[in-house]
């Protein structure tokens, strides 16, 4: 396997081992999401759901975060009327039957970072089912175009175009800098790992240093619709999070895409793990 990223300070060593570390923490995070989602009941608030995620992961050794867990319920899954970033933080919105929800968490475990998004709904919601099913095309599109080494900005626009064709609104535009993805990396383990506005300071430091390097070399650790993302995919690990919105219902997945500098298209980019809840769901639907 080719080297993942020369620019990654801590991740260069044993690549396979490194990827295993990322895979493990991503699985842990998805296990947390499924466990918490299974416990959600009508009346539980976003704050309670976020706390459940935090506690579940803390019990399993997570001490640092790329960002603290988020939970969005109801039309907040589509970021309806979001104007300031503070609105992303969990509120006292209570879950009701039929409501969609999204759990989004980014734990750091043994120095490896994951950033995942899990969409579900409480009971039947045909609109939500359709959104989830339609996300599959985006996962395929992103991988294909990264392998073809289109510029990130172009891929962003193509994803958006697909969303519009499907009849949806692009809701990842609401994220800070409108990003569809951002780089994640290994983080040095410290005894004290404070957070700033929900983001781990260690991870922010890593992101800032990437941004600085990238700025010198003409790339950015943020995958956005803006000119600073007008460059081919940079080798490394990208947490990709296409987010669909449709009239008060939102759905997303978030998982790590590995980009390498290999010449072999298959090796040049691949999803870190193909055994994730949303992927399994699509496979089950196809089988059915």
């Amino acid at each position, binding site marked *: 396997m080719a080297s993942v990223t020369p620019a990654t300070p801590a991740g260069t060593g044993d690549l396979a081992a490194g990827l295993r570390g990322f895979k493990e923490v991503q699985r842990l995070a998805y296990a947390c999401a499924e466990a918490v989602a299974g416990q959600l009941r009508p009346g539980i608030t976003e704050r309670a759901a976020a706390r459940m995620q935090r506690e579940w992961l803390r019990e399993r050794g997570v001490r640092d975060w790329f960002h603290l867990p988020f939970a969005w319920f109801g039309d907040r899954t589509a970021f309806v009327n979001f104007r300031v970033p503070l609105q992303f933080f969990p509120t006292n919105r209570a879950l009701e039957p039929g409501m969609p929800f999204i759990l989004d968490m980014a734990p750091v475990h043994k120095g490896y970072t994951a950033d995942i998004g899990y969409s579900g709904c409480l009971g039947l919601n045909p*609109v939500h089912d*359709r959104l989830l099913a339609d996300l599959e095309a985006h996962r395929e599109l992103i991988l294909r175009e990264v392998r073809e080494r289109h510029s990130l900005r172009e891929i962003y*626009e193509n994803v958006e*175009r697909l969303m*519009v*064709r*499907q*009849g949806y*609104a692009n809701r990842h535009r609401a994220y800070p800098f409108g990003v569809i993805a951002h780089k994640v990396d290994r983080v040095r383990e410290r005894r004290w790992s404070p957070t700033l506005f929900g983001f781990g300071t260690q991870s922010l430091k890593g992101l800032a240093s990437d941004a600085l390097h990238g700025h010198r070399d003409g790339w950015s650790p943020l995958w956005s619709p803006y000119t600073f993302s007008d460059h081919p995919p940079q080798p490394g690990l990208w947490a990709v999070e296409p987010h669909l919105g449709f*009239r008060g219902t939102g759905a997303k997945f978030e998982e790590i895409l590995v980009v390498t500098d290999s010449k072999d298209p298959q090796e040049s980019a691949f999803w870190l793990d193909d055994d994730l809840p949303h992927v399994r769901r699509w496979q089950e639907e196809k089988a059915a």
Partner: protein
Amino acid sequence: MNTGRGQGPRRGRGGGRLRATGRGKGRGPGPSPGAGPGARSVPGTGPGTESETEGGSGPGLAGARERRVRTGGVELCVAELGDPALPTVMLVHGYPDSKEVWSEVARGLAARFHVVLYDVRGCGLSTAPRPLRGGFTLEKLTDDFLAVADAVSPDRPVHLVGHDWGSVQSWEFATVRRTEGRIASFTSMSGPSLDHFGHWIKKRMTRPTPRRTAQLLGQGAKSWYVYLLHTPVLPELAWRGPLGRSWPGILRRIEKVPDGGYPTASLPGDAAHGAWLYRDNIRARLRRPRADAYAHCPVQLITPTGDAFLSQRLYDDLEQWAPQLVRRTLPAKHWVPRTRPDQLVSWITEFVNAKEEGDPAKEVMAAGPHADRFGGQLVLVTGAASGIGRATAFAFAEAGARIIAVDRDAEGAARTADMARLIGAPQAWGEAVDVADEAAMEKLADKVDAAYGTVDVLVNNAGIGLSGSFLQTSSEDWRKVLDVNLWGVIHGCRIFGRRMAERGQGGHIVNTASAAAFQPSRVLPAYSTSKAAVLMLSECLRAELAGQGIGVSAICPGLVNTNITATSRFTGVPADEEKRRQAKAARMYGMRNYPPEKVADAVLRAVVRNQAVVPVTPEARGARLMSRFAPRALRALARIEPPL
């Protein structure tokens, strides 16, 4: 089949009324239900209390089976249509009407229900009580209802539908104890419960805030005729004299009621007798409204927004009296059974079916805004595969409308229809048609007419963009833009608008113009011209169709984030430069990021409020304002070439 329901005294009804004795007797051996029109389902019954004839009810109720039910000293004329095995829908007429007011609605319902109409005592072919005074109290009218219900549907509760005084008395039926179990549902139009009305007045009198006072005075002014009807003798003289003669003309001119077997010749007598409805009930009930007037059946309230006699505010607190209330609003005047029969048939059918099927998971009302207005209506949107058209289709779908999504892009239109069904449209279809193609539009209209019905709301939204200086725009480019942006709208308005007008039951046409219709620009000569034409076309059409109850609105959006930028043609530049400009324009519109959903909301609002011209987005509103007060500034802006 014969239940042999107790003939004994029933929950102490007053008045020592004669029971219709043959009730329910001998239904078993009768001919099988649905044995053709005019099949006698109930053979001649008891001695002299009920009799039956065929097709004798006025001109409007052809094919109706008629019978007479004797009760409380009067003989009521009852007409039946449809298969008696089906659920019974009973239509109660108002004042000054007879059962013929329902002729169109009854015809529409007869295919699906057992429709029963009767002339209220003193009206039409029913006899009047002697003496008149005290013969029209709500208690006696309730006796009448029970007698008719027992005669036509002895073993199943009936679905009540009342208009005007028919609704006022039906409210009494639906709220008194002794009718419990006899009414399955109640659809009320233009007739409040007098008890609710009494409480409504009391509440406003005891705490007269400015708003409440205004509501009170407003309804007080609308009730002018009620005061007149309380004067002795004069109303009778007027109705039997000049007013009775001129009434059909008044209805036609002021209430826009179409001709056709209504009002009937019995009008002067109906109206003279009916005055006692007011005199016997109004003062008593308004002074001492019952405190327990809670509906014991599901209620659907249909409110005509243009009712000259009843304020919409009367129904503000109705949820307190009727817990499972379903609200509908209809842009029409008072006589909706005459002017909007199709809509009533659709809503009554939907409501009755929901109650008959008794599926609690199925909501009668859609969840979105304006569902009271658009529920079940047929909405056709052109250019519905993307952008504003798609968002508009979705917004109507959320309001429970049936959607026809029309676009050149078959796949996109089908996708819109598909998603529309997911979010609340009871039915939705995608149609691949080019709006510029007149023959194709004609074909579409025929298909829609035959398969889906007459369009209630038409949204002519399809449009394409074209940018470039006038001197560099070829005549071919001009033709393309005008074909879609202008001719598409003309075809839509002509072909679908004509059918709408021919139906004569109102409707609405929305044309998507643009802020470019009043904001000149050196880079958009062809596009702006086409949109200005659409704006003026809408204004002219609005004037023409106003008399037929069809509204026309022009929507003028500014910069809205849709794919029109990516598909616009830029003239006078090479292909790669055109591509670059499309991408740049798309990005700029993306940065502006005004969502098409907001335009869709404005479309629905424009239809509900019947607005003429609706600029959407701040820049469009600003441009519209400037075009009126500072046109020179707009002209100066027009000279600027936007950086692309």
